[in-house]
């Protein structure tokens, strides 16, 4: 029911994904940003703090920080403090390697931050094969520190063909650590494009995961799997793509995109260096096109009301067409396997 309010257009994003740096001390094979060295002209501290001010003025509720590894940015904690001081809730996606007790203590004091630590397997060899030697142990160390703090913490795992069989085990691991589990979708963006054929989950793995999710209301998926979401989880969130409607992505150099998976020149909506973010949100042609996108090929599907065509980013990466429907939706997974291939509420007066 709330979809119609979202589709009618909001005055500001509910949350913004902000990739504050492209610098990363890891080289994960599936990295959507192809992170490594810093981008040539990353936002200065002054520009970053100015952007926080503008997000606050617009009424943005939450900023999800990612990268790269956000803690590699020397002023990152200053940017965080600016958000918290203005009442903006933050979530940090980190590889955990730069967390230490003092830093965790500083983060905990704000009371307004959540942390996701990336871990791509329940077993050391699975995770390290994707994220690099030693990453499993370092992530567990970070999770241990965070679990002792009041910071809401989750393991963030990207579902791949390599770890699909370990997701229940990963859930057990999260439970034993006292943190939650969040599973994200692998998309063929950044370095993920090169690893796509090898790491893309098979249709049968996606179906198995979908069935497993049905019984796991405590596992978060963001909106990653809404095209695969079983009936039992439909009440947990919006069932349409939020890009340019509820959220958008700001890159390290201030470029604005509909989502983190569409950071390509053809989807650049503007730059906060060139114009106010509010103007980009309200007036960008790219955003207007996303808001008006109709996935006609899916409209006759009996599940259309549940997923509205799924993730346009995956459709684009796989077929250079935002409107062709999610190639990995539940219906297509079922068709592939059987061989027939061919948390919101509304309140009124």
């Amino acid at each position, binding site marked *: 029911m709330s979809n119609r*309010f979202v589709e*009618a257009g909001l005055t500001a994003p509910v949350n913004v994904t902000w990739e504050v740096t492209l610098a990363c001390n890891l080289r994960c094979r599936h990295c959507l940003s192809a992170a490594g060295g810093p981008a040539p002209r990353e936002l200065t501290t002054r520009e970053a703090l100015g952007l926080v001010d503008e997000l606050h003025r617009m009424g943005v509720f939450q900023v999800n920080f990612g990268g790269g590894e956000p803690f590699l940015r020397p002023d990152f904690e200053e940017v965080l403090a600016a958000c918290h001081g203005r009442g903006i809730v933050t979530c940090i996606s980190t590889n955990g390697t730069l967390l230490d007790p003092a830093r965790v203590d500083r983060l905990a004091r704000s009371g307004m931050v959540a942390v996701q630590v990336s871990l791509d397997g329940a077993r050391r060899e699975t995770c390290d094969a994707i994220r690099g030697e030693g990453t499993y142990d370092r992530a567990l160390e970070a999770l241990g520190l965070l679990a002792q703090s009041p910071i809401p913490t989750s393991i963030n795992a990207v579902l791949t063909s390599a770890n699909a069989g370990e997701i229940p085990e990963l859930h057990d691991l999260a439970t034993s650590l006292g943190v939650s589990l969040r599973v994200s979708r692998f998309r063929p963006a950044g370095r993920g494009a090169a690893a796509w054929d090898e790491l893309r989950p098979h249709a049968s793995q996606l179906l198995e995961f979908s069935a497993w999710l049905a019984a796991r209301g405590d596992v978060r998926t963001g909106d990653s799997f809404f095209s695969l979401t079983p009936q039992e989880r439909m009440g947990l969130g919006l069932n349409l793509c939020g890009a340019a409607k509820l959220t958008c992505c700001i890159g390290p150099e201030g470029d604005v995109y509909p989502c983190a998976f569409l950071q390509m020149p053809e989807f650049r909506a503007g730059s906060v260096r060139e114009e106010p973010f509010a103007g980009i949100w309200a007036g960008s042609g790219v955003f207007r096109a996303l808001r008006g996108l109709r996935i006609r090929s899916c409209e006759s599907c009996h599940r259309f009301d549940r997923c509205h065509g799924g993730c346009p980013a995956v459709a684009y990466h796989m077929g250079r067409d935002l409107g062709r429907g999610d190639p990995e939706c539940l219906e297509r997974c079922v068709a592939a396997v059987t061989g027939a291939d061919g*948390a919101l509420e509304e*309140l009124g*007066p």
Partner: protein
Amino acid sequence: MRQEAFGLLFYDMRGPRLLFARTGDLLDAGVIARGLPVEQALRARDPASRAAAGGLIRRLVDKGFLREQPVC
């Protein structure tokens, strides 16, 4: 919480979860942000809209999006 065309959009960081409150022009974000006493905030309203707005406020309190507190 902020004003949108349909009414008020609440963000609850405990979920996080969103509440789309179709309040129309019965309540505005400024009134809630200032934390005015309900009677004062709704004083200028006619009895019918005052009752409707009062009902909405009560439901927002029940859902935990607003907190009732003594004014002195």
